[in-house]
């Protein structure tokens, strides 16, 4: 089983899987417990605008996706309050406008867009060294921010109004949390692609959530599960020559069902 690790691209893929799992385990925990799955889906799709922008400007699309998705996250989190609009409507609008912008940008770019598919559906086997570096830096930013603000993230996730009364600047903290979602979206783009990102942001944490009630343990378990399941998906995709992103998501989905059944048996 281990001989396929000898390939350089496989080693890179496993490093990518590890970096991806850190982002989705830590941020995914908040996505699940604060129930912001829909807005996270919106942020990940809107990030496509940033990818398109990269093609247009001729820079690495992963880089241009960073400011683009952070800005759309901030807009989604604040627009609903600024103008009379429900948050889910704001999300729906930015979700589709972001994607449409991406398509227009790519239209406007000279020539055709090589490896566009890798951004949409992921290609963890071909993550270039530079992208791994970007992912590492983003992971460090995510970990640092969570280290600084975990009290506030938990407080606003549990009871936003009470947090506000206690002096937590809850709107600001919410926006920071959404910005972290945006950064983890960028970390995940190359692995599973924009369309499947939400699976990695929710499934590992949703599985762990069934077995622990302690947020730090929940994060740890999600990271470890993420590493195991993405590696498994990677290996299966290699073995059966299937699309890596989709295989990873299928493995995640299967793991969730198995865990749900296990839990049922466990508690009866």
């Amino acid at each position, binding site marked *: 089983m281990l001989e396929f690790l000898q390939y350089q691209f496989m080693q890179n893929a496993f490093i990518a899987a590890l970096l991806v799992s850190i982002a989705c385990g830590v941020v995914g925990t908040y996505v699940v417990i604060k129930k912001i799955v829909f807005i996270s889906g919106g942020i990940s799709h809107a990030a496509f605008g940033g990818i398109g922008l990269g093609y247009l400007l001729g820079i690495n699309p992963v880089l241009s996706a960073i400011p683009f998705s952070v800005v759309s996250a901030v807009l989604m989190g604040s627009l609903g309050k600024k103008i009379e609009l429900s948050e889910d409507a704001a999300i729906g609008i930015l979700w589709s406008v972001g994607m449409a912008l991406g398509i227009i940008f790519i239209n406007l770019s000279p020539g055709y867009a090589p490896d566009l598919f890798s951004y949409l559906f992921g290609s963890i086997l071909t993550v270039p060294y530079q992208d791994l570096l970007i992912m590492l830096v983003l992971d460090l930013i995510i970990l640092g921010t969570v280290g600084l603000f975990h009290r506030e993230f938990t407080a606003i996730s549990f009871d936003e109004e009470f947090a506000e009364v206690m*002096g937590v600047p809850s709107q600001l903290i919410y926006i920071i949390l959404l910005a972290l979602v945006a950064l983890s979206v960028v970390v995940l783009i190359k692995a599973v692609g924009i369309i499947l990102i939400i699976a990695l942001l929710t499934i590992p944490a949703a599985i762990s959530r069934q077995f622990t009630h302690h947020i730090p343990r929940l994060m740890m378990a999600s990271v470890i599960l993420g590493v195991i399941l993405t590696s498994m998906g990677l290996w299966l995709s290699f073995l059966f020559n299937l699309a890596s992103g989709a295989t990873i998501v299928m493995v995640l989905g299967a793991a969730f069902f198995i865990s749900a059944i296990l839990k049922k048996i466990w508690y009866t």
Partner: protein
Amino acid sequence: MANVVNMEGVYYKLKDYYILENVNLTIKKNDFMALIGPNGGGKTTLLRLILGLLTPDKGNIEVLGMAPGKSKNIGYLPQKSSYQSNFPISVLEVVLMGRYKQLLKGYNKEDMKSALDSLKKVEMLHLKNQQIEKLSGGQLQRVFIARALSRKPELLLLDEPTASIDPHFQGKFYEILSKIRKKMAVVMVSHDIGVVSSYVDSIACLNQKIYCHGPVEESVEGLEKAYKCPIDLIAHGFPHRVLREHE
């Protein structure tokens, strides 16, 4: 010493009708005030204005010498918490949130001590590591009371604290309040007029307007106006005949 709360000519409007109209209210240091009035009378709204969660349409509010929402030296028990019931958090962690100070400041020994103390007061210490989703409604209410107490604030706002609480703990709860009330101003929304009147210094009756605000004995008339029905202040079965006995 300035007042703890100063409200002058406060109006609060929802769409086109007034929920609060020309409310004037002062709460002094160490006051223990009952806020009484019918359902929908605006009591919760009044507390939320004091907390800065709502902004008045007209009028002026000052809390602990600051604009509402600026001073965080306030303990709060919401009537309906907007918390997530299946959240992965323990009882102790919930109470610790009442000790929140500011960004980048963790909880220290003193915070822990205060949280454990408050849990002991509400007789929930043995469940401190319990997952909150496994608590009953009344147990949860006690945890939220502990969360408000643990702050040791200058102003404690309690919105219908005795709702969903068993008679045993209700007695205990009033005992707790009479012990801490020397240290802070307390405003308590309650419908147990009879019981409450033997503990508090003053009563404010609210039904869109403040109908009365003053020492318990003087408030009966206003109470009846606010509720639009006669009120028997001596509740059945309660021994504290403090009111209008010799009239």
